[in-house]
């Protein structure tokens, strides 16, 4: 019977991977979120490895006694999880690229509702139902409502280049 207590090195590895992953996930830039998700997923994959116990002999009938074999099931599950993560990462990267194409940045913008409320608070209006939605559709709102990331860009340029396509975001308001 092989020892099933987890290896400290692997546990620490999981901690580091998930910790840095969560830190990156909290960023606004989609590229960092992609890296963060990749790190967390790998951390969880290592967690699966720990769940299977310590390494033993290869699980092939005839090569070792059954009680010395390592558990093959976590490996199978890790393999599946890796494939799924690969697909998800590819999709996220494509979305980050599309976002850069459209907006000139890949930052995740605020929820429409949040932006409306923030705008009202800025203008010091009553929070009661005002004419904030004077018959505009969601799409029009999205184009005209000022967005936190856009205003940051204008007040403190941080090296983002903003192509003409995305420039109407903040301008429409004034």
């Amino acid at each position, binding site marked *: 019977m092989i020892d099933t207590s987890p290896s400290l090195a692997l546990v620490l590895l999981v901690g580091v991977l998930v910790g840095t992953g969560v830190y990156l996930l909290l960023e606004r830039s989609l590229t960092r979120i992609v890296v963060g998700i990749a790190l967390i997923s790998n951390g969880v994959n290592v967690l699966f490895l720990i*769940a299977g116990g310590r390494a033993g002999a290869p699980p092939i009938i005839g090569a070792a006694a059954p009680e010395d074999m390592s558990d093959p099931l976590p490996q199978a599950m890790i393999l599946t999880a890796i494939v799924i993560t690969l697909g998800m990462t590819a999709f996220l990267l494509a979305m980050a690229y599309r976002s850069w194409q459209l907006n000139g940045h890949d930052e995740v913008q605020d929820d429409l509702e949040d932006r409306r409320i923030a705008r009202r608070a800025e203008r010091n209006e009553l929070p009661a139902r005002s004419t904030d939605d004077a018959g505009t*559709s*969601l799409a029009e709102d999205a184009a005209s409502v000022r967005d936190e990331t856009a205003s940051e860009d204008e007040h403190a340029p941080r090296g983002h280049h903003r192509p003409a396509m995305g420039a109407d975001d903040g301008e429409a308001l004034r």
Partner: protein
Amino acid sequence: MNELVPLPVLIPLIGAGLALAFARYPRAQRVISLVSLTTVLAIAVVLLVAVNDGPLVLDIGGWAAPVGITLVADRLSALMLAVSVTVTLAVLVYSLAQGAADGDQGAPLTIFHPTYLVLSAGVSNAFLAGDLFNLYVGFEILLVASFVLITLGGTRERVRAGTTYVVVSLLSSIIFLTAIALVYAATGTVNLAQLSGRLAEIDPGTQLVLQVMLLVAFGIKAAIFPLHAWLPDSYPTAPALVTAVFAGLLTKVGVYAIIRTQTLLFPTGRADDLLMVAALVTMVVGILGAVAQQDIKRMLSFTLVSHIGFMVWGIAMATDDGLSSAIYYVVHHITVQTALFLVAGLIERRGGTTSLARLGSLARLAPLLAILFFIPAMNLAGIPPMSGFLGKAGLIQAGVVDGGALSWALVAGSLLTSLLTLYAITKAWNQAFWQEAPEELPETSSSAGMVGATAGLVVLSLGLTVIAGPLYDYTDRAARDLRARSPYVDSVLVDGGRGTGQSRDVTEDADRQEDTGDIEDVEETEGSVP
């Protein structure tokens, strides 16, 4: 009969492959989608009848339960499957009619059909999964498809809303995956039936951690407060038919997973009070959000969040009646919410917008649309003869029987929520249909097929009232099975609840060789038996 179980997953997947191969022939794609989903619907109905004799189990690859991958269809799975496929098919008909009406311009449509079929396969897989990891795979299949559908066309607004949706969904998947790893570490299995026995044997503290992690993962998918914030932001921007199928199905997959977690894996009921509080807050916060909205789609998204609370309440009561009402409510809500979003799509086509401030006079311009909106809206609010009322009445009755301060608070909360739903819906109804339109609405038309598909769902939601008696009998039995656990566990793990864990080939060979008295060459004959 057992061989039918994997078909609801296989047929849409094969259909998706074919549809992708015929990407240049839209007509062939349409035929493929329609044929696959119709076949699946027929299978789902057969399964619905067949599970009355006990759950159907199929071991994929011929390995017996605790080792192999198992697909299980019990009463709950079969019912969810039948309803979800019906709704998927109705929305497909709507989309075909829409494509015909718009003259099929636009490249995104070529990937719509394959993705839509993959979504259907993922939902079916989640309902049929017999182990936690397969459930995770089912979730991922439907998530990947939903990512593509929600960002369909790749406009700026959809990419923005899609980003939130994608990141939050991925996060919930990661939490779910972590929970699976911990479950495996603690018990050494991911098979649901085996887990139901083994989880009871481990340390109660560990149990609670695992339960809460699973509930958080599923709670994000089901959009329970405080994990709901992604939903009202991402759903309204997607195309109407995508939102309709998402609203109907995706959150309900989360609810289904919560039902399994609470009944099969952790029947001790330690998280029941937590779920009750979450249900109450979900109801009230959701509906207050809906009241404040000025856009039909956003308003409907918030009512969706709110009414998830009713289902969670039913699950949290952990009584036969409560669970039965919750299942009935899920069935009712899938049809009604999908119908409402489809109507919102029709309103958008007719009026050019879904903003209530700009709509008006629709009752004069499109009286049929008014009726189509009015019926499911009243159904959602729970006006007496309709299925919404029956579901809510069942829940309230179970709550009153349950007694307790929290139950009474929920009874009061649900009544308040129903009233506020009525208010929000009536406000939308008045503004969109009866007030004078502030400006002339554009002259557009919807095709008969789109109206027909929507009308079909509305009629189905009314039909739930007509068959309420038999349906409640069915959900009662489903709830009893779920709470007893033994029908599910015994049918998956034959041989005294532990299962053999052997390949079918090996057991068959062993049987044969026992007859002839020769057990030597088991390994040589392996693989030769089909």
